[in-house]
């Protein structure tokens, strides 16, 4: 490591040792249900032959990766000159894909209180994403207004997959609350994207393998981003910002160009769009780097970054402690120093209002 830029890591997964840690933050009748029966998320997950986490991330004292603050501090925060780390939780995003509305909303609320009472207090470098159950937009909006004003909460986080496209009016109370409170909405792959109320994970059906599923995470974000733009979310809530975590970058130019082209012919059905779709994307949306695409020549990725105005739109993320973790100094190869700084910390500092 021959560079020592400050870094804001926009995707870090801390977690509890056991779901019972959330029980004190629940109310009955759901409190007993969590204690006795667990979360009750639907279904299983695609099988990864390499597992889901870095093999060196298991705490010596036992427990799951991401559950040990000291180890995270050693492997991530201190190792990389991390100035801020955005805590996105572990195994909570599934609340949005449960069939019920009230129990998942309370699970999200309990997680948020647990986050603020535990991990946020462990280290001044931690800032947190607050969880919502998006299928209950009114409760989600209420929760955003309750917790979203906390100075260490930097954004709302929701499963990238939702029961229907996220731009539709059913979900607008969530965006209105984010806009009012002044925090971004962020999306992260999670929950189980192949069961519960989740749609089929690809437009052509169920792939067999994790290799396919993971590669096609970009499908999800292409769909959600298109929905938000075309439904006029950014026209209706001009202060709203959105963050797309862990979906990659390189698909974005093609999406913007296709949207802009089609908009010119088809704008009559969405007359609320007053600007080119790509303008809404570049002005309102951020994209995190991990898992960074690894083209055969580094310059290809730098060119992609230029196409998406990465100096304003791209933010570093490591995904610690997951198996597809990215090292910050690996992903910035080939960039000029200005772009390195923008991606490693300046864009995130501006979005979240952080001082470096």
């Amino acid at each position, binding site marked *: 490591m021959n560079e020592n830029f400050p870094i804001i890591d926009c995707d870090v997964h801390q977690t509890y040792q056991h779901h019972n840690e959330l029980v004190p933050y629940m109310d009955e009748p759901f409190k007993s249900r969590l204690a006795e029966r667990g979360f009750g998320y639907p279904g299983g997950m695609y099988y990864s032959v390499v597992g889901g986490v870095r093999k060196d991330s298991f705490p010596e004292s036992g427990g799951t990766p991401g559950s040990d603050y000291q180890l995270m501090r050693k492997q991530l925060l201190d190792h990389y000159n991390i100035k801020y780390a955005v805590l996105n939780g572990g195994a909570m995003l599934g609340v949005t894909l449960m069939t019920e509305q009230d129990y998942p909303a309370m699970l999200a609320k309990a997680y948020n209180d647990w986050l603020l009472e535990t991990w946020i207090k462990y280290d001044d470098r931690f800032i947190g994403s607050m969880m919502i159950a998006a299928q209950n937009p009114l409760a989600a909006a209420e929760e955003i207004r309750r917790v979203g004003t906390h100075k260490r909460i930097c954004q709302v986080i929701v499963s990238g997959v939702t029961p229907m496209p996220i731009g539709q009016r059913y979900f607008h109370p969530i965006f209105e609350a984010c806009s009012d409170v002044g925090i971004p909405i962020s999306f992260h792959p999670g929950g189980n994207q192949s069961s519960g109320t989740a749609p089929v994970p690809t437009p052509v059906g169920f792939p067999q393998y994790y290799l396919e599923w993971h590669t096609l995470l970009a499908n999800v974000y292409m769909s959600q981003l298109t929905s938000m733009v075309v439904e006029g979310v950014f026209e209706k809530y001009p202060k709203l910002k959105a963050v797309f975590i862990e979906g990659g970058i390189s698909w974005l130019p093609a999406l913007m160009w296709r949207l802009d082209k089609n908009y*010119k012919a088809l704008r*009559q059905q969405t007359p*609320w769009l007053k600007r080119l779709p790509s303008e809404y994307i570049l002005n309102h949306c951020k994209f995190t780097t991990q898992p960074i695409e690894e083209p055969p020549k580094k310059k290809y990725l730098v060119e992609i970054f230029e196409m998406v105005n990465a100096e304003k739109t791209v933010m570093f993320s490591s995904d610690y402690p997951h198996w597809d973790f990215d090292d910050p100094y690996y992903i910035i190869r080939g960039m000029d120093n200005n772009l390195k700084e923008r991606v490693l910390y300046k864009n995130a500092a501006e979005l979240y209002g952080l001082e470096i």
Partner: protein
Amino acid sequence: MELHEFCQLADLSEKEFLIKEINGKSIGAILVDGVVHTILNYCPHEAAEVCKGKVTGTVLPSNVGEYLYDGNQKVISCPWHGWEFDIKSGKALFESEKSYRLKTIKNSIVNNKIYVGV
């Protein structure tokens, strides 16, 4: 630029373009609110014969979830890709990275005959 006779004023309608080739150029003429408009029959997108498209009103910019139809603003919708142009100004209705515009052709009316300058 020379003036060339195009047609009689009575030949024009408000519903569709009258298209003629004048001095090697295809030109369309139409009436909008009683005023003659003449344009080059050429879409600035992919060179389709734009004047063969449908002449309609259009949907105005609105709030999310609202549709405001304006039957008075006359637009020509290109028969290939549907790009809409305001007939009076020639401007494309959508916002874009650059301005797309139909090429308007000067005309004059003398003794109920329309002349175009090409």
